[in-house]
C-alpha cells in the first residue's frame, strides 16, 4: 500500500522537477504549465496501477528468474560454445543470449515464450474491468476524448514493458560483462538494442490482441482465456497442423529442384503466419550474424560464399519483412479494438 503512495510521489516529484525550468523561463504561464494533459493523467495512473499491482510484480519475477537461469547456463557453457575458426568468434558476447546446453532454453527462447504471457497479462482486463467496476462511464463523462482511454492504456502498458525488457537485457549484459570480462563491441551492442526493440514489438502484438479481447468480452476471465487460447494455438497446434499439411503434399525424392524449392517456400509461408515464428526467425538473424538466409539456398548460391558473419545492415535487411509483419499484426488488432471501442455504447454497468 505504501508502495503505491511512494510511486505516485515519485511521479509527482518527477513532474515538478521537469516543470520547474519551464515555469522559470515563462513566469506568466506558471499555472497553465502545471495543468497536465488528460492523456498524461490517465497514463500516469495506469503506469502506477501496473507497477504497484501484484500481477505485474509476479510476471516480472517469473521473467527475471527464468532469465537468470538462462544467463547461468549461458555462462557455464560459453567456453564450449566457442570453437576455433568459428565465423561468429567475433560476436562472442551475443552468445550470452543464444547459448544453451540443451537442458535449459536460452535467453532468446525465453523471451519469445514468456513475452506473450507478459503482453496478455497486462492487457486482458484493460477495458472490461473498467466497465465492470462502473468506472468507464464515469471517466467517459469527463471532458476527454474517448480514445484517450484506450490509447493511454496501450501506451502505459508498452512503457512498462519497454522499461522492464530494457532493464532486464541491460542487466544480463552487465552480468555477462563482469563474468566474462570482455566488453561487447559497438555492433554487438546495437544488435542487442535491436533485439530488445523487436522483443517490445512482439510483446506489443500480444498486448494488443489482449486489449482487443478485453473490448470484445465483458468478463476479464473470458478475455484472458481467449488470448491464451490464441497463444497456445500458435505455439502448439499450428505447427502440428502445418506438419500434417506439408507431409501430405511432400514432393517425392525424385522431384525437381524447383519443385523442392516451391514446397519449402510454401512450408515457410505457412509457418510464418505464426507471430512467434516471425519473432524467433528475426531474433536468430539479429543475434547470430552467421545466419545468411531464412529460406532455402541452392548449391549455386553457396558455392564460393565465405563462411563469415553478415554485416548489421544485411541482417536487418533479412529481418525487415518479419518486423513489418509483426508491426502489421500489432496495428491491425489495435485498429479493430479501437474501432469497436469507439463505436460501442457505454452504459453504466
Amino acid at each position: 500500500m505504501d508502495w503505491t503512495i511512494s510511486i505516485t510521489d515519485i511521479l509527482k516529484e518527477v513532474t515538478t522537477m521537469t516543470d520547474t525550468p519551464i515555469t522559470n523561463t515563462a513566469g506568466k504561464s506558471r499555472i497553465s504549465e502545471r495543468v497536465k494533459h488528460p492523456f498524461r493523467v490517465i497514463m500516469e495512473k495506469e503506469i502506477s496501477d501496473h507497477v504497484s499491482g501484484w500481477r505485474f510484480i509476479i510476471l516480472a519475477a517469473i521473467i527475471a528468474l527464468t532469465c537468470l537461469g538462462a544467463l547461468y547456463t549461458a555462462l557455464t557453457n560459453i567456453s564450449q560454445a566457442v570453437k576455433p575458426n568459428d565465423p561468429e568468434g567475433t560476436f562472442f558476447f551475443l552468445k550470452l543470449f543464444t547459448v544453451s546446453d540443451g537442458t535449459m532454453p536460452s535467453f532468446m527462447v525465453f523471451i519469445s515464450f514468456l513475452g506473450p504471457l507478459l503482453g496478455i497479462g497486462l492487457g486482458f482486463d484493460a477495458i472490461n474491468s473498467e466497465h465492470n467496476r462502473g468506472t468507464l462511464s464515469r471517466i467517459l463523462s469527463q471532458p476527454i476524448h474517448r480514445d484517450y482511454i484506450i490509447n493511454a492504456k496501450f501506451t502505459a502498458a508498452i512503457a512498462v514493458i519497454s522499461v522492464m525488457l530494457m532493464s532486464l537485457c541491460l542487466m544480463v549484459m552487465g552480468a555477462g560483462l563482469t563474468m566474462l570480462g570482455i566488453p561487447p563491441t559497438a555492433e554487438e551492442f546495437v544488435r542487442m538494442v535491436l533485439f530488445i526493440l523487436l522483443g517490445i514489438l512482439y510483446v506489443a502484438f500480444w498486448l494488443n490482441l489482449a486489449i482487443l479481447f478485453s473490448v470484445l468480452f465483458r468478463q476479464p476471465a473470458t478475455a484472458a482465456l481467449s488470448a491464451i487460447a490464441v497463444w497456445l494455438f500458435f505455439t502448439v497446434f499450428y505447427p502440428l497442423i502445418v506438419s500434417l499439411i506439408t507431409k501430405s503434399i511432400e514432393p517425392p525424392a525424385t522431384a525437381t529442384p524447383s519443385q523442392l524449392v516451391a514446397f519449402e517456400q510454401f512450408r515457410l509461408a505457412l509457418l510464418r503466419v505464426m507471430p512467434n515464428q516471425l519473432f524467433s526467425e528475426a531474433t536468430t538473424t539479429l543475434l547470430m550474424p552467421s545466419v545468411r538466409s531464412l529460406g532455402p539456398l541452392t548449391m549455386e548460391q553457396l558455392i564460393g560464399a565465405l563462411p563469415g558473419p553478415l554485416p548489421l545492415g544485411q541482417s536487418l535487411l533479412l529481418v525487415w519483412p518479419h518486423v513489418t509483419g509483426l508491426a502489421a499484426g500489432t496495428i491491425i488488432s489495435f485498429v479493430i479494438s479501437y474501432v469497436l471501442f469507439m463505436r460501442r455504447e457505454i452504459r453504466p454497468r
Partner: protein
Amino acid sequence: MAGSIIELTGLTRRYGQFTAVDNLSLTVDKGEIFGLLGPNGAGKSTTILMILGLTEPDAGTVRVCGLDPTTEPVEVKKRVGYLPEEVGFYDDMSGLDNLVYTACLNGIPQAEAGEKAKRLLERVGLADDSHKKAGKYSRGMRQRLGLADVLIKDPEVIILDEPTLGIDPAGVKEFLNLIVELSREHKITVLFSSHHLHQVQMVCDRVGLFVGGKLLACGDVQSLASQLFGKSPYTIEAGLDLPGSHSGDSAANQLLGDIMESIMHIDGVSDIRKENLMIRVACNRDLTGEIAAVVISSGAQLKSLNKREYGLDDIYYRYFEGGDNND
C-alpha cells in the same frame, strides 16, 4: 425565465426493432430541478446518454448549453456532470485520490485539485473518510462521493440517474436535501431521473412523466394533477358517528342518506361515496367547511375530516391505467 439549458427536439433512439426513445421533445430551464419520472426501461437512461453524447440519437437534436453533444462532446462534458446509476470508483484508491484524479482529468492543476476535493468531501460529509479506500465505502457513501465527483468540475448542469437506488430512507433524505442545497447554492440545473415518486416530488420543480420512450406529461406536480383530475382535484373524507348506528338502526341509515343527499346538493361536488361510516366526496374546490356544516347541522357527530390533495403517486398510477386503456 433564464432561458433553457437543455433542449431536446424530436429525439429518437432505436435498438433494432425496439424504440427506446420515441420522438421526445423536452426543455429544461436554467437553474431548475427537473425530474424524469418513469418505470424501469422507460428510456430515461438512454435519453441521458444522448444528452451526454455517449450515445448518438437516430433522429432529432440535442442542445445542451447551446452545444451539440454529438459533435462537441468534450465541450458539453466540461459543463455537464453525470452521476450514473451505479457509480464506480477505483476501489484501491482513497476517496480523495479518486476525486483528485477526476479533477486532473478536468484540467484542474494538482495542488488546486487536492484543496477542492477536500472541500467537497467536507461538504458531502465524507471528510473523516477521505483517506479510506473507496472499496470500503458503503453504498450511501459512494453516492455522496459520486456527488462530490460530479461537482468538482463546477458544472452548469448535473444529471443524476437513479441516484438514490439502494440507500436507506434516512440516507435518501439526506442525499436529496444535499442535492437541493447544492443546486440552490451554485445555481446548478439538475436533471433527476428516478422511478421513486416521493423523492421526485420532494425535490423537483418540474416533472416529466416518461413511459415507453414517450413523454406523456410535463409540468409541476400541481398542474399535472389538474391536467389529470381536471374535474375533481380535491377529495374530502369525513368520518361520522351516528346515534344508534352500531345496532343497525334504520333511522341511522336514513340520517346518513339525508346527509349524503344534502352534500350532493352543494355546488361543486361531483361524486360521493360511502364506506361504512366514512364518506368520500370528490369536488372541484375546497369544500371542507361546507361539508362539516352539513354534517353537524344534521345532528350526526363529525369524528374526522380529512382533505386529500393528489400527489405524484396518484398521477403516476392514473397515467399507467390510462396508458393501458389506450393500447
